[in-house]
């Protein structure tokens, strides 16, 4: 029982990341009809927003303190982050919470990146075949990740979770099961965060007039255009939102997985599988499939199952995708008529 709950929890946080990336992918696909291979790069850029913010916060000022001596007998150099020097205690808290706080930086940055990408490149590819869209966004993904590699190097850069969340939570106690199920706090935070973002996106689409127009445009963009609404502009904003969602998923994932330049591509392949399993263009499908595949993957990596079918943890997601595509061509929740051939 404990093991099962633990595996479900393990799957949920990874599933949260898959769901967030897949949500953006399928949102872009449903509105703009574009298959965006650079979406993983947006996730990666988000993660590097957190890295950059942390670097900015920890720029240090070196002061020489003649009263303290190093073992070599010279005056000790004391390094204090500038933020601490300026803001005192609050600065310390800020450095500690640099990952969640960098969301504030990431939102505008990712929004701008997304809108520039759509306006500058992707809008010229609406009328071109899907193969061309795949190819040009694939090229863009390479360019983005190489630029990041140039500035940040090829090694993963670990980011610390804020101190209060750094330990492990005794989930078993919370559930009243008595037996301890140790689980990192930050992963719980990530799970909650991803659920909140998913809810926010759904609420935006479901309960605002803007979202209603976007949904109408997904159904039939021509009619919406004929009603005198500038649907292209709305879709650009949707692309920006998808970019922000991917970026935030990246920001919050940094304490779980130290970001490196190719993390985007690693997640992209899986997220595509998630989108396809959920059904191209279906938002609910993407979220459901994201969590489902995340949980399946963590179950497959249990030792009991691995000893039964060796290596299943490596291929389970792809296997499920193949089976689903063959038996349910539209995916779990695909709409009729969207990209069937």
């Amino acid at each position, binding site marked *: 029982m404990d093991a099962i709950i633990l595996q479900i929890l393990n799957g949920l946080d990874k599933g949260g990341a898959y769901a967030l990336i897949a949500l953006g992918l399928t949102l872009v696909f449903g509105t703009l009809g574009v*298959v965006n291979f650079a979406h993983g790069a947006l996730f990666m850029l988000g993660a590097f927003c957190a890295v950059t913010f942390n670097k900015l916060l920890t720029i240090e000022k070196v002061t020489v303190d003649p009263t303290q001596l190093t073992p070599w007998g010279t005056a000790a150099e004391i390094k204090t982050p500038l933020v601490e020097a300026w803001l005192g205690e609050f600065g310390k808290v800020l450095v500690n919470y640099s990952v969640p706080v960098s969301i504030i930086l990431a939102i505008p940055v990712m929004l701008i990146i997304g809108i520039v990408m759509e306006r500058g*490149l992707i809008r*010229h590819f609406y009328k071109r*075949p*899907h*193969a*061309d869209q*795949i*190819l*040009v966004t*694939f*090229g*863009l*993904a*390479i*360019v983005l990740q*190489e*630029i990041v*590699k*140039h500035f940040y190097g090829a090694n993963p850069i670990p980011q610390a979770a804020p101190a209060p969340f750094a330990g492990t939570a005794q989930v078993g106690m919370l559930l009243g099961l008595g037996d301890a199920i140790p689980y990192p706090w930050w992963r719980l935070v990530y799970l909650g965060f991803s659920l909140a973002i998913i809810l926010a996106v759904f609420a935006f689409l479901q309960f605002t007039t803007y979202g209603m127009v976007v949904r109408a445009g997904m159904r039939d963009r021509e009619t919406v255009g004929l009603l005198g609404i500038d649907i292209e502009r709305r879709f650009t904003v949707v692309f920006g939102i998808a970019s922000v969602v991917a970026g935030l998923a990246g920001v919050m994932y940094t304490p779980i997985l130290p970001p490196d330049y190719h993390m985007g*591509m690693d997640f992209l*392949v899986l997220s*595509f*599988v998630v989108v*396809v399993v959920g059904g*191209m263009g279906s938002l609910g499908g993407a979220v459901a499939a994201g969590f489902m595949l995340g949980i399946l993957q963590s179950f497959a990596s249990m030792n009991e199952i691995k000893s039964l079918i*060796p*290596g299943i943890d*490596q*291929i389970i997601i*792809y*296997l499920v*995708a*193949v089976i689903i*595509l*063959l038996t349910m*061509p539209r995916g779990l929740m695909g709409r009729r008529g969207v*990209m069937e*051939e």
Partner: protein
Amino acid sequence: MLGNLSKNDWILVIGFSAVVLLAPILFQPIGAAYPAILEKFCIFGLFAIGFNILFGLTGYLSFGHAAFLGVGSYAAVWSFKLLSMNVLPAIVLSMVFAGVFALVIGFVSLRRSGIYFSILTLAFAQMSYNMAYSVLTPLTNGETGLQLSLKDPRVIDSLFVTAGDGLPRTSLFGVGISGGGLPGFYFTAVVLIIGFYVALRIFRSPFGLMLKAIKSNQNRMRYTGFNTRPYLMAAFVISGVYAGLAGSLMAAVDPLAGPDRMQWTASGEVVLMTILGGVGTLVGPVIGAAVIKYFENIFSAFNENALANIFSFLPQGLRDGVVKISSLFVGEGWSLTLGLVFMAIVIFLPGGIMEGIRLIVSRFKKRGNGNKSAVNGQAQPAE
């Protein structure tokens, strides 16, 4: 045999063979005349030709073609380990394995088309890559890669010769192939020419026409009561066999195989080569492969010192700036250049280099004799 090839096609084959065979002399001026890089040109050219049979003719964009290359490499190295250091059994074996593998993957993937096909092939390739890394370690030797060792049985070889000291070289009936000599290059070159000739025959055959028809309108083909699946299947398997052949050559000139060859970046690379050269053209993919491998070789070798030498004619301040900026694109940053070039090609010249050449030629013709040129409509833009 001479059947349905026109005079122009024969000129093409002969010209192509001449260029390939004379490459050690022709490529002297650009500094790419040594066997190691020429072998790369040939191997990746072959890979791209095979990919083009699928993508260029049917329009099905496979994002997992490197899986076949990897399977071919592993099969070839196993053949070197178990059977013989002769390259012929290795080649046959890896073509068979890659073909069977393509049959299985094609059976599943070809049920869908468009973006789904791309994602399915990508998923299969990642699956093979992950398995080569983990479960199949007894077969693939995991991360280290499969290598020859002194304890290999080599059943056939041991019948004829006693094993010497050290690791043997791969050979073709006594002529050494691995180790970067000219015989190795000529071997790959001959295989490339044969592969090119077969591709040409496929392009000109009724089968090739069927594939082109599937590309231009699959639905219409189906409405006429035509089952497209077997044709697609055949194209997929043929291009998989080409990839397996390329993989075996890779193992023949350098007998080891690692899972990296199956990674999706490798699949992306062959797409790049084909697009750069020109999708659906015959020579394009080979040119694309050669151009990419050539510039990869040159650009990766640059570093800041070399750049500073090149720009030494500039004044100090300006030079530092120029060196800083251009160092972004060379050495480690070669992939960045590749990505940018690739984007530029897809955006501005979807037909690749061949399309560019055609445009230039037709412009010259137009200048020469009035309005006769526009009928040159043989090459069509990609997809």
